[in-house]
C-alpha cells in the first residue's frame, strides 16, 4: 500500500515536469553537430592549428585520424571556429544539424525527481521501521540510489551535449562519388566541360 502511494507520488511528479517541459519552449534543449570537408595545402600545420584553436576556445579533441579530427566545442564558439577555418583554407562541404531533445531532457529530470522523492520516503520508512523491515527497505534504497546515479550520469552527458557542439573536420571528401561524365544539360557543349574527359585527354 505504502509502495503504491509512493509510486503515485512519482507519477504526479513526472506529470508536473512534463507540463513544465510543454510550457517552456524558450528552454528548449538542442545538440549541435557540424561537419566540414576542409582542404588545405599543409594538412599537418592545419591539424596543429585546429587543435590549438579548439583548446583556446574551451573545447577538446575526441579523436584524430589522418583523415579526420573530431572534437567538442562550446556551442557559442562554433561560428567563430568556422570563420577561422574559412580564412586559412577551403571548405568544400559543410553539414550542420540541430537535434532537439527537450522532451528527453525533461523526462530525465522528472524521472530523477520522482526517484529522489521515493528515496526520501523510503528513508523516512527506514527510520520508523522495526528490525524485521530493515532488510527489504534498505534493498529498495540501494536500488533507488543506484538508478538515481545512473540517471544523474545520463543527465551530465546530456548537459555536456547541450553546452558543447560536436564538430568534425575531414581533410578528404567523404562523399567520393565522381561527377557524372556526360552530364544532363540540354545544351550539348556544356556536357563536354568535365573533369574525367579533361584528364582522359592527357592519357
Amino acid at each position: 500500500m505504502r509502495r503504491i502511494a509512493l509510486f503515485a507520488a512519482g507519477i504526479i511528479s513526472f506529470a508536473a515536469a512534463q507540463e513544465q517541459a510543454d510550457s517552456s519552449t524558450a528552454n528548449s534543449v538542442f545538440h549541435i553537430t557540424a561537419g566540414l570537408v576542409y582542404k588545405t595545402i599543409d594538412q599537418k600545420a592545419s591539424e596543429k592549428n585546429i587543435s590549438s584553436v579548439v583548446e583556446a576556445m574551451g573545447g577538446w579533441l575526441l579523436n584524430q585520424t589522418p583523415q579526420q579530427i573530431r572534437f567538442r566545442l562550446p556551442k557559442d564558439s562554433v561560428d567563430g571556429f568556422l570563420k577561422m577555418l574559412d580564412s586559412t583554407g577551403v571548405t568544400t562541404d559543410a553539414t550542420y544539424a540541430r537535434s532537439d531533445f527537450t522532451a528527453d531532457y525533461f523526462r530525465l529530470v522528472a524521472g530523477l525527481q520522482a526517484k529522489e522523492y521515493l528515496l526520501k520516503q523510503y528513508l523516512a520508512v527506514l527510520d520508523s521501521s522495526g528490525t524485521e523491515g530493515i532488510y527489504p527497505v534498505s534493498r529498495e534504497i540501494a536500488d533507488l540510489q543506484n538508478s538515481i546515479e545512473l540517471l544523474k550520469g545520463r543527465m551530465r552527458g546530456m548537459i555536456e551535449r547541450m553546452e558543447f557542439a560536436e564538430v568534425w573536420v575531414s581533410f578528404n571528401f567523404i562523399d567520393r562519388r565522381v561527377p557524372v561524365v556526360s552530364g544532363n544539360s540540354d545544351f550539348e557543349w556544356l556536357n563536354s566541360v568535365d573533369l574525367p574527359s579533361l584528364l582522359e585527354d592527357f592519357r
Partner: protein
Amino acid sequence: MKRTLLIIAITAVAATFAGGCSRAFTAVAPEGFATYKGGESFRAVSPGHIVYRVRTVANDPYAGFDFWREALPERMKNAGYRIIADSVVVCAKDKALLLEMAAPVEQSDYTYLVMMMVGEKRILIAEAAGEFTEVQGRKTEIVGALLKNLLK
C-alpha cells in the same frame, strides 16, 4: 609542275593546322608547363601533373555571356562538382567567367578551374585540373594564364 605546287600548298596548310595557327583563339600556358604541339585544342602539363587545356566550341544555340554564365555553373553543380568560387572578371574588354571547383578522382581530391569567354560564333573554354595541393601551390600563375587566353 602544277602538281608539285599543289603538294607544296597542301603541305603548308597541313603544317599550319598542326601548329595550331588555325585555332580560333590565342592560348597561353602557365609558366613552367610543357606544351603539346598540334591538335584542335591547346594542351599543356606541369611536372606535378596539372593538366591545362584551351579549346573553343560553337556558340550554339546562340546566347550571350549572361546566359552561359548562369547555365555553366548550374550544369556543373548538377553533375556533382563542388563549386568553391564563381566570379566574373574582365579580360581584354570581354567578360569571362572563372569557376573554381573540387571533385574526388580515385583516391585524390582534385581542383578543377574553368574559364569561359563568349564570342559571337565561338565560346572559349580554358580548363586546368590537378591534385588539390598541387593546384593551390600554383594557383596564381594558373589563373593568370587562364585569363590571358583570348578568342581571335
